[in-house]
């Protein structure tokens, strides 16, 4: 990527981009955190060094937190409150089904998952990762973990993900939720091209305390298909066929359907306090990160 002679930490992107990513932080809409101590500020009072507010003293309060200066002036005890930093759970769900094996969809999905994971681990969040594929010989989940030392494991896991299979995204989410504990953000990186209903898994994610971030990765051939004449389309996952006559005349309808799907996914995520974005696999990772995700407020630099 850069032509540098130094050894690269990962094959997904070069070290310079890694350095930039390490300085970024995720920006969830809600503060869905866990009790565990972390670096993510919770809405409740805590024991950090950052002052948050005052409140009246009540019996039983630790006298160490009484502000004696105010007591001296007002003759009434007030308790000082400090911000509480809790751990946020970042769940990465990478769709590695066969449909993601077109053009650079899967690579871009893995890169984005790695970037989101690194951002989480750099900020002492618990990060877990799940890959949706049918390969029995390959790991499909990375258990939750935190700390910078976890970065290598995450990268190794993601590098090892290879595409295949026809597991629909809604089934994969339900499976993932059986193993997941904790509140935070669920980042689903997929093409969301499924015959099933994704609203149910979205509800399940939301009720599990996860903010749903949907990131749709489509190939350029899916955004602007170049087709003409009579064709027999074959589904890469199910091998089912669909006969299309005079495909060029149907492109307008196709675009309408694609935009309608994106609009529907966007509404689903927004109604669950989440986010949605569709990107092309033809875009470079920095473009997606710095021009789209930063601008849309997904991440902070």
């Amino acid at each position, binding site marked *: 990527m850069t032509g540098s002679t130094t050894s690269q930490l990962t094959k997904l992107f070069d070290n310079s981009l890694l350095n930039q990513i390490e300085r970024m932080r995720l920006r969830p809409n809600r503060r869905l955190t866990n009790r565990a101590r972390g670096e993510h500020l919770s809405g409740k009072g805590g024991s950090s060094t950052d002052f948050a507010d005052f409140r009246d003293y009540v019996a039983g309060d630790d006298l160490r937190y009484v502000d004696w200066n105010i007591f001296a002036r007002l003759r009434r005890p007030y308790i000082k409150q400090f911000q509480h930093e809790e751990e946020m759970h970042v769940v990465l769900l990478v769709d590695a089904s*066969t*449909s*993601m*094996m*077109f053009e650079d*969809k899967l690579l871009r999905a893995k890169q984005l998952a790695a970037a989101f994971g690194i951002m989480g681990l750099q900020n002492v969040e618990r990060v877990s990762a799940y890959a949706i594929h049918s390969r029995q010989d390959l790991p499909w989940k990375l258990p939750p973990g935190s700390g910078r030392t976890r970065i290598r494991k995450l990268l190794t896991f993601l590098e090892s993900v290879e595409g295949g299979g026809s597991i629909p995204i809604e089934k994969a989410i339900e499976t993932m939720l059986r193993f997941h504990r904790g509140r935070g953000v669920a980042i689903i990186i997929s*093409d969301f*091209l*499924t*015959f099933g209903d994704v609203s149910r898994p979205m509800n399940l994610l939301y009720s599990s305390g996860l903010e749903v971030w949907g990131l749709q990765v489509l*190939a350029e051939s*899916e955004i602007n298909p170049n*087709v*003409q*004449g*009579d*064709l*027999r*389309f*074959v*589904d*890469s*996952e*199910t091998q*089912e*066929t*669909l*006969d*299309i*006559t*005079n495909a060029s*005349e*149907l492109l307008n*309808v*196709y675009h*309408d*359907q*694609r935009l309608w*799907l994106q609009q529907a996914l966007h509404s689903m995520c927004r109604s669950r306090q989440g986010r949605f974005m569709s990107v092309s696999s033809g875009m470079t990772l920095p473009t997606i990160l710095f021009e789209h995700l930063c601008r849309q407020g997904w991440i902070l630099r």
Partner: protein
Amino acid sequence: MRWPGFVNLFGAWFLLALIPLIILYFLKLKRPRMEVPSLALWQSVVNDQRVNSPFQKFRRNLLLLLQIILLCLVVLALMQPFLRADAEVAVYKPLLIDCSASMSSLDESTGKSRLDLVKERVREQINNLTGDQRIAIFSFANTGRRLTEFTNDRRVLLKALESIQPLDLPGQLDDVLRMAAAYTRTFPIETIQILTDGNLPEQVDFELPFKVEVQRVDGGGPNIGITEMSARRSGPEDWEVFVRVSASSIDLRGAELQLWEGDKPTDSHQIEVSNEESERLVYPVHSTHSQLIEARLVPAGFDSMAVDNNVWLTLPAARPLKVWVAPKLASWRHAVRVLPNLELEESEGDEPTGTEYDLIIADEGGFGSAEAPVRVLVGVVPSDLQDLITVEEDVTYVVDWNRTAPMLRHVQLSDVQIGEQPKLAAGAATKELEERGYEVLIDGNAGPLMLQRREGLTVSYWFTFHTDRSTLPYRVAFPILAANAIESALKQASLADVAAAPTGVLPPIAVDGSRTYTIRTPNGESLTAESTTEGTLEGIPASRVGRYDVMDGGNLVTSIGTGLLSGTETSLQAAGELRISELTVATDEARQLDADRPFWWLLALIAFGVLILEWWYFQRARGAMS
């Protein structure tokens, strides 16, 4: 609106091929396979299209649509559709084609004859024959001729059609209608078509067992021709030859009328005639022997029909009329003797000395074995009428007589008293006399007084009473009667008047009895005919204008010429209506020969176009994919 008909309705079964066509289309449609990540979006697109525009499927399956159209067109062509003509579709249709002389009339601009025009239209009708139609072709001029049986074999029909040539004969419908009617017993004929120029007699005495459609063709230009030629003896060796020339157009037309004796022209006149006023010319001819003269018309300018420009006439050799009168019939001898140009045998014997006479006037004594074309028997009842007529001794008188009979022309018999009374037998009637071949010329108060009978070239007159026992010899009528007998004999011997023979059948020719003769026709053909025992050649067909030579081996016996001699044919006029029995049939030129018009070829052509379009579309689609 006239719906098309179908010859082969069973062809509609082929429409069932649509089912396998559609099935095979969808089963075997070779579409390029293209792998896509997911069908989710495309399936939505297809569902959306199905819901929003169910008929778009056909538009999108344009190839299938073209194939269905192609199959439908081919099946329709197989069903052999045709547009019905005005004429009803008759399964058996006799075509009666006029080939009379007027059909040879040429059009000045196109050079086509009326028969050519008819042939073109019949040819079209034959080519458009549908499967279950049968045509029989008849040609007719003065008589009919069947050229084919009912058939749908185009080759046979076209060959028969091409064989039809115009004949030098006037047109007559009767015979050919009878021939066609004979076929109604065998075939269900509903309609016959007559193809003619309308130059036919307007009245046809025929009961129609079918409908008649007369299809008339026009065409032909101005025509001038000879319509009459005859000669009358004006002296012992002199003749006056009369020639009448008529024309078809209103405008005066000029021509030169020439008279030829043998190979050299002897006289000529310039004439101008129109259809309103014919020209009659007289040529004096001196002739000592039998000779064939020809009237030849040389029109100035275009002449539509050539066959009426030549007429031949045989002038007999000049000789006195040979007459024998029984010696006992003194009154007849006296009456005959004074008449000119005759040779009366004056012998006193009871029987004639010679064997051949032109006129024999005999009494009950008979005339032996002598022969004469005209015989007058006085006071004789024919032997085969002895049982019907008896002569009694009583006075009788003339009740009525046939004033138009040649023998009684200008004869007044009102006050003639007769001393004998020929009487019909009880219960007998004139009808029975007619059944035996006799015609009553004079009726008495009790029975026939004069009878006439024709046998071949011979005509016999019987006075059933003896003229000497009546006041007839003392009346003016008697010399007139004798003169009429001489006149009849002169005519019979062609010594007074001769007329040119029209085409059709040659007039009886006097030759040796029971011999075989060869007749050489104008177009070079030879006919063989045998003379009767009485010495006549009869019934020789003469369909061409020209000279007919009668040959006995290598020797020329006599020559006789014919001419068209039909004012109707020369006028080229078309009858507006034909009255066939009591039915009037319009002849309509504007209503041409409307044949059923098959248009399977048009459908096949469109099908071919659709095939080309489909091929182009298929190649275009393939090119787009590649």
